[in-house]
């Protein structure tokens, strides 16, 4: 069977999980990733909600406030606004990378421009893995069977041992 991958692309498969957002609510798809903001020399594990409907990958205050001092938020990149159902949220952009765990305990790193929500916004949202990453592959979600599977087609990915 012929491959539909170009010679420079490799397919990587990552697995997530479902968790409830509130009592009695539906399960939401999450994936446990590693986040690095290299300009601040900081990295942290983050559980990101898989959100194919989000244009951007976001880091929310519940994660960033544990990574950055409050004074460091003013050093983040270009400010912009996100629109959510509840209204607009001020945010900043920042280059970084997301690390996905591979089955052999290695980490596959993908460059991302994070959208970092203003910590004073009052947001209680989870950080989200958005369509800026998910568009490079296939996302399989099956709540009934608890399946969250992301397959990314990556060119020259950075792989490091954990």
């Amino acid at each position, binding site marked *: 069977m012929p491959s539909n991958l170009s010679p420079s692309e490799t397919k990587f498969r990552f697995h997530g999980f479902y*968790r*409830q*957002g*509130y*009592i009695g*609510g539906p399960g*939401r798809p999450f994936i*446990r990733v*590693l986040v*690095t903001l*290299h300009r601040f*020399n*900081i*990295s*942290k*594990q983050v*559980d990101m*909600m898989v*959100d194919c*409907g*989000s*244009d*951007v990958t*976001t880091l929310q*205050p*519940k*994660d960033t*406030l*544990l990574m950055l001092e*409050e004074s460091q938020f003013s050093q983040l990149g270009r400010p*912009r*606004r*996100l*629109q*959510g*159902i*509840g209204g*607009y949220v001020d945010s900043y952009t920042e*280059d970084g*990378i997301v690390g996905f765990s591979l089955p052999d305990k290695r980490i596959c*790193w993908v*460059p991302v421009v994070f*959208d970092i929500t203003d*910590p*004073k916004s*009052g947001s*209680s*949202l*989870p950080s*989200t893995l*958005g369509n800026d990453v998910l568009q490079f592959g296939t996302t399989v979600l099956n709540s009934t069977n608890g399946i969250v599977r992301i397959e990314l087609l990556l060119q*020259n990915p*950075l792989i*490091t041992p*954990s």
Partner: protein
Amino acid sequence: MSYFLMNNLKQFAKLINEITTKNKLYESSVVLSESQDFVYAHRDELTQQYLDQWIAVYKKDIIGHNKNLLSLVRELRTSGAPLQHIALEMLSSEEIPLALQFVP
């Protein structure tokens, strides 16, 4: 700097290795997973106890709670809590809208 355009993968890998080592990322992730998984496993009873509050969990212990996230994190920093190992969670009883969209 965009690493999509960065040709020197070895240099990038070295940088990432330095950052993750400095942050003890892999060791701290094991503890953080324990903290976060405790929240997931006990969310219902924690919600009843700390309704509409943020909680800070270290391993299997609630080490702080507050209705304001910024205040909670300030308390944690002041107390010298190991931030890399802590899971923060808002225990809300109501649905939170989650759709996001970039506005140019």
